[in-house]
């Protein structure tokens, strides 16, 4: 710690946290992992929400919570979540409204959770 440019411990840690802040701003998935590791309760907004929201995890809980997260998303973000989580193909999404797609997302995610989650837990 005493080697190099002779920074204080606080200055050293500031450098570390500055780097972390920069990364968290541009990488919502890392931010979500860090928050989860720390056990915090924070809200992600707009595009960041589409990056980090896990439809399977939310479909395992109350539907109202699921809708509060995905129901507020833009159509493009909803489609992105459906595609990235293998919940719908382009063919399936064709011509459907945002509310239709959120309903589809919930029913398919809930069905997969029900089929895949062991009844022992």
């Amino acid at each position, binding site marked *: 710690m005493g080697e190099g440019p002779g920074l204080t411990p606080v200055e050293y840690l500031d450098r570390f946290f500055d780097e972390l802040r920069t990364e968290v701003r541009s990488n919502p998935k890392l931010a979500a992992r860090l928050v989860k590791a720390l056990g915090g309760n924070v809200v992600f907004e707009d595009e960041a929400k589409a990056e980090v929201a896990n439809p399977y995890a939310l479909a395992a809980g109350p539907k109202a919570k699921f809708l509060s997260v995905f129901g507020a998303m833009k159509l493009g973000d909803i489609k992105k979540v459906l595609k990235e989580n*293998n*919940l719908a*193909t*382009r*063919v*399936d999404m064709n011509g459907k409204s945002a509310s239709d797609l959120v309903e589809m997302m919930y*029913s*398919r995610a809930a*069905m997969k959770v029900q*089929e895949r989650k062991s009844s022992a837990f």
Partner: protein
Amino acid sequence: MPALIAAIANLKGGVGKSTTTVMLADGLAHYYGMNVLVIDLDPQANSSQMLLTERGVQDASDQGKGVHHVLASFMAGKPPSAAPFIMPNAVTLEELRRAEEQDERQGWISSLPSHPQLRMRELGLEEEWYSGSGTPTSLADALAKFFREAFEPLLPLYDIILLDCPPHLSPLARAGLSIADAFITPTIADSVSTWGTKQFSEWVGKFVTPDLAQRNFVLITRFRDTKYARSIASDLREIYLKDRWFGPTIPESVHVLNAMDRAAPDSYDTFRGKYAGVTGDVRRLAERFTDFMTQRTGATWAKVRD
């Protein structure tokens, strides 16, 4: 021409048997307009899940469809029959679905699915059979006879029947192998899989068909392009299995994993949408296997789609 029965089999697990089954079913139905029946003899029910989804597999079972119901019919001493246990629609491709809707069917996939209950049903059957003077071989022979008679009326209805076999030699698996005309052997380019392929070849060559080499279509799957894998693949082609017919090498790819994860029983995708970066590999697999079928049966197939 009656359907060719091809068993997708290898005693080594994790080599891509179920994935190969689904890719081949899709490729032959899509490009060549073939009417394909997929029979899943593996209690893990992987190819059934890939075609029908988990919910679809359960729904099929609830409707009395599946290999475990065929076994129950055998156990009850009923006349051999398979047709009532088949799911007539296991299509996931939008092109096939749309053509059917417009009454212009060109290519179709049906399924005689598996279910995890199949394992329990097999165990029950074996307990019962062995409690008398029965042996594993006599049970395998009796099942093979039952299957031959049950599938006989279906042969004119399909172009090809694909049997997805489990990675072991239960009486049910042996019965499946013994009714097959051809054997598709997926393998991975590594040393343990190469050895597993030897075990499979020796067993089938000894107990099922001495002319396995002429009936065997080998596929190197889950290929990762490394010097080691290239070397093993080359040895398989040039030394260990040099008398076999080889298909294209299928790469290890996230596109393959995605293609096998159907979103829901009512979800469809275009062929290109489903296979994305491995579309060309699946097309080559269908082309090469059709060449193999022509060599086996003398029949030829023309492409119905590009």
